[in-house]
């Protein structure tokens, strides 16, 4: 099989012949679409910030916590004043929203640094881990799922599918702890802490991927099994296509379109910081920062982090939609 002619349509020009002239106002439609998405984003960020503001203040008197257990009432009052916590709630809220609108979340209670800067500093580590894990996930789950789905009544496939089902119930941190025990503690092959060396990313990324693989495998195998019964697959077989060609070039491109949305969701979950895995592996990402800041009631950091994450998730979802629109020729706009 040497034919790699036109891989399922990632690029290319649509048919020009016989097309009517483009409908007027296409640029306008695009601008409207963008504006609508943008207003959704603003609304989302506003809602998330508001929710967060009140939630944080439901959990007790922040001034008492911030001042520490041994603080005198005077010290507590000083803290209250310092962070503007003595003002009426409505005023605090108004101040918070106005500042948030200018991306000003104040300074970290712990370090005194700009909260947003502190959060953005952690972003690359989290993104690195997230992308690595999702990539690893796809490298394993797509071939594995395709194999299971291409012969879903096979014995080996049935067993594999059962293993995947059980694996889906396995929490990611269990795998992480096992990996640390084997590869870091007993074999001493890989670092289990921090992100100083390139190899340090391996264990946390594998742990995260191991958590993602079962679900993606199941979706891919279900989609492949379903697509195998499609009429166009029979057409391809009637034309003499080999099993290999049928699966790789006829079934998978269709089956993966259906799985792309899940990969997008998985990425969105991971960019919001893999909380437990980051803590276990002391990975200096958003997740670890968030856990620490919540424990320390470092409001500015938590608020800046949640704000950032909401925006990131939104952008990831939008990118997934856009990618689907490009990958699926039926959704592609006639240009």
């Amino acid at each position, binding site marked *: 099989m*040497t*034919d790699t*002619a*036109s891989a*399922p*349509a990632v690029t*290319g*020009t*649509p*048919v*020009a*012949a*016989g097309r009517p002239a483009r409908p007027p106002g296409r640029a306008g439609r695009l601008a409207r679409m963008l504006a609508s998405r943008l207003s959704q984003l603003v609304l989302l960020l506003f809602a998330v910030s508001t929710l967060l503001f009140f939630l944080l203040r439901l959990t007790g008197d922040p001034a008492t916590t911030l001042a520490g257990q041994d603080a005198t009432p005077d010290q507590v009052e000083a803290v209250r004043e310092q962070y503007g916590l003595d003002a009426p709630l409505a005023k605090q809220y108004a101040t918070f929203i106005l500042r948030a609108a200018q991306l000003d979340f104040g300074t970290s209670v712990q370090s005194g640094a700009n909260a947003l800067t502190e959060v953005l500093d952690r972003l690359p580590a989290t993104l690195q881990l997230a992308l690595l894990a999702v990539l690893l996930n796809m490298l394993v789950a797509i071939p594995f799922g395709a194999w299971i789905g291409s012969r879903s*009544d096979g014995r080996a496939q049935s067993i594999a599918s059962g293993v995947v089902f059980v694996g889906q119930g396995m929490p990611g941190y269990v795998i992480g702890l096992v990996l640390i025990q084997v590869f870091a503690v007993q074999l001493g092959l890989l670092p289990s802490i921090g992100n100083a060396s390139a190899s340090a990313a391996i264990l946390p990324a594998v742990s995260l991927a191991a958590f993602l693989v079962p679900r993606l495998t199941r979706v891919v195998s279900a989609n492949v099994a379903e697509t195998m019964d*499609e*009429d*166009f697959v*029979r*057409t*391809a*077989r*009637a*034309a*003499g*296509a*080999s*099993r290999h*060609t049928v699966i790789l*070039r*006829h079934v998978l*491109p*269709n089956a993966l*379109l259906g799985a792309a949305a899940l990969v997008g969701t998985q990425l969105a979950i991971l960019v919001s910081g893999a909380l437990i895995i980051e803590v276990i592996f002391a990975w200096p990402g958003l997740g670890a920062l968030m856990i620490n800041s919540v424990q320390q009631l470092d409001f500015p950091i938590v608020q800046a982090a949640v704000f950032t994450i909401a925006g990131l998730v939104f952008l990831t979802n939008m990118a997934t939609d856009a990618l689907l629109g490009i990958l*699926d*020729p*039926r959704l592609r706009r006639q240009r």
Partner: protein
Amino acid sequence: MDEAVLDVDGLSVVHGGDTRIVQDVSFRLGRGEILGLVGESGSGKSLTALSLMGLLPPGLSRTGTVRLRGEDLTGHSEKQMERVRGAQIGMVFQDPMTGLNPVRRIGSVLVETVRRHQDVSRAAAREKAVEALAAVGVPSPGDRVRAYPHQLSGGLRQRVMIALALINEPSVILADEPTTALDTTIQAQITQLMRDQIQARGASMVLITHDLGVAAELCDRVAVMYSGGVVEEGPTRELLRNPRHPYTAALLAAAPNFDRSRTLAAIPGAPPSPFARPDGCPFHPRCDRAQDACSTKEPVLTVSGSARLACWNPHD
């Protein structure tokens, strides 16, 4: 009779080891000949064609002998059948809306099919694809090779399906209700196209249809199937003018024509399920000429002149 291009002998499609959904179908297809397989839905026409291709759905298996240009396909492995499909037997399916891969450009699939069976460069295969589209009457084929199925009308898609079946010049085409899913005006075009292409290439065709009008127009011979078996076969003109099997006669009486004075005569009842066939002739419960013998002994397909017939009490 000279060497048949396709010689089918005692072909059955078996479900679960004992139920024969298609039973004991035999026919010979001469070079350049078009044979119609006619019957109601569920009579086993499509399964007959799929079994010839080695494309039966899971759970079904084929028995009997299939010879293609003298080559016995009976013992062929899946790998060997892949080499036969598309190269020596092409198949056109009923529904062009679902029969083409929605995410592949049609040219890409055509090129893939050419290069599967012929050792040619990609550029040469692409040229063949454009030629094949032109041959089946696709307008501006040079542009259409880059189209996706959803950008084409149903009629155009069926033309693409035909191009795909013909592109490697197979000697036999199996066409399973190729015009049923199309508008009436398009049907006539596609019917004519298929006849022209078969003639131009010196190929032979098995045309599966429930439409006696299409069969009358296209086929040299017609085999009528009922409940998985052939009940009558003969030259088209003779068979349609003077049907001898009561089922053939009933099918003709049930077919609409332009004679408005005649009411359509529906056949009472429904075809039996292959899991609960009656004893004797499978048609006898619905037959107006049934006799005692019909319900006890199954009639055997017997040759008489150029025709074959399985009936205890045929029309004259």
